[in-house]
């Protein structure tokens, strides 16, 4: 892990956070806030929805130094992508007001990049080639008040697609998908912190 920069990670659900908490050996500070001071990683469990994500991101930003990096990790749906596939998000659009954010893509990675739409309710029909989630727009709105586009990123793991709807998602599956990608996420985090 980089020596000087700090990374703030926002995750919606406990079951998404657990594999990351274990991987980085994060200690519980409060009910939803975890950190490892040595590794300079902070993680907050925001709850579901963009408003909660924004609030949690702002809370983290105010609590940590102003040179921090912000990362949203979570699950998302896509028409065709395989369950468990990891995607780096290239554009985030708030479905309600159509506002978009464009995180700078400066990283050495072979991970697929795709745009994402944040919706208020889970998506059952996938009408576009975008990923769909419920938090990223709120996270970006919160984080971009504090740092530039180079320091805010979003990683999603595919949890549902046209062959396997959200109804098939279980806590165990979510845990397994994130767990199987922890080392890839860690690699990316190290790339992020090089800037």
């Amino acid at each position, binding site marked *: 892990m980089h020596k000087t920069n700090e990374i703030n990670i926002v995750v919606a659900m406990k079951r998404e956070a657990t594999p990351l908490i274990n991987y980085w050996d994060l200690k519980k500070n409060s009910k939803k806030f975890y950190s490892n001071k040595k590794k300079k990683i902070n993680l907050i469990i925001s709850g579901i929805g963009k408003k909660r994500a924004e609030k949690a991101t702002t809370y983290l930003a105010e609590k940590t130094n102003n040179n921090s990096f912000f990362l949203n990790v979570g699950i998302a749906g896509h028409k065709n992508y395989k369950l468990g596939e990891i995607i780096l998000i290239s554009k985030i659009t708030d479905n309600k007001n159509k506002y*978009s954010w*464009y995180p*700078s*893509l*400066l990283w050495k990675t072979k991970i697929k990049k795709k745009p994402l739409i944040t919706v208020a309710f889970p998506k059952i029909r996938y009408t576009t080639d975008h990923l769909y989630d419920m938090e990223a727009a709120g996270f970006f709105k919160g984080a971009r008040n504090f740092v530039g*586009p*180079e320091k805010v990123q979003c990683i999603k793991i595919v949890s549902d697609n046209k062959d396997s709807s959200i109804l098939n998602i279980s806590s165990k599956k979510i845990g397994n998908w994130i767990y199987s990608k922890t080392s890839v996420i860690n690699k990316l985090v190290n790339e992020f912190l090089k800037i």
Partner: protein
Amino acid sequence: MIQTIYIENQIRRHHRTEQILTKFKKNVDIVYCDHYGEIFNIKSQNFKIQKKKPALILAKKVGKKIHDIPKSFSIGGKKNYYFSHMLNCIYDCEYCFLQGKHMSAHYLLFVNYEDFFIEIEKKIKQNCFEKSYFFSGYDCDSLAFDGITGFIKSFFPIFKRNKNAILELRTKSVQIHEILKYKPIDNCIVAFSFTPDNISKLIEHKVPSVKKRIIVMKKLADAGWKLGLRFDPIVPACNFAKIYENLFKNIASNIPEKSMHSISFGMMRFPKKMFKKMIKENPNKRITSLPFENRNGIYSYNKKIENKLENIITKKLKKYMSNIPIYNCKV
């Protein structure tokens, strides 16, 4: 190496967009946007970080495309204009005003060249009794990115058929192969920018060496092209007179005077806001140690130094290139 291309939705099917995309490998990431400003004009971007890995943005230029240039920046004409089909540059010169001009370091390319042609020809028509001068290298190095933009093959024909207009293509690039495909066009001047070799090595990052630039100038001269010499900015340095004299001597001994259209030079100069932004983002760069002073909102060298440098430059230029018109670009 460009890894990300942002494309405005309105030009995603434009013939030039499609042409440009063929020049990239399939693994480049394409992101569509509604307006380039969503990426390029966002506040709080870090120019320095972006400059390490700039993306390409393809967009449509709306509004005014041709802009007036102050009379004091002319190379002999009274009607002077610049146009910018592209913003930002592949080179990284520490003195470059572009680092303070835009929010972003991404390369922004306007693909609707045809709209530029219309405005250029309209201006030429308006000024039918005198020559119109058009400068293309103000916000980018038009030649350096020609492999992607196709600037030469698109813009040269406009000037080939409009003899009452002059195009200055200002560059530090050595990518002249596209130019050499054409027979010389008398009203297209390929103008090369120089600082002395030791200064260039220190502060003009990624720029081809002085030697390489002189070699390609010679090739163009041999092929019959009109050339320009631009010493802008003049950079104060140790042994100033000697290193500039060596540069002038070197150029003069390789390029025949008859191939030269003009010489221009100018001091480093920045509007206040641009200067402050540059300093803030690059506190450790060498140019911050130069003797700048605020002269009516423009940061430049103090008058005494300016006069001294001007005298040396003029004297040395006249010594080696006496028959070429010299223009001093003054604020």
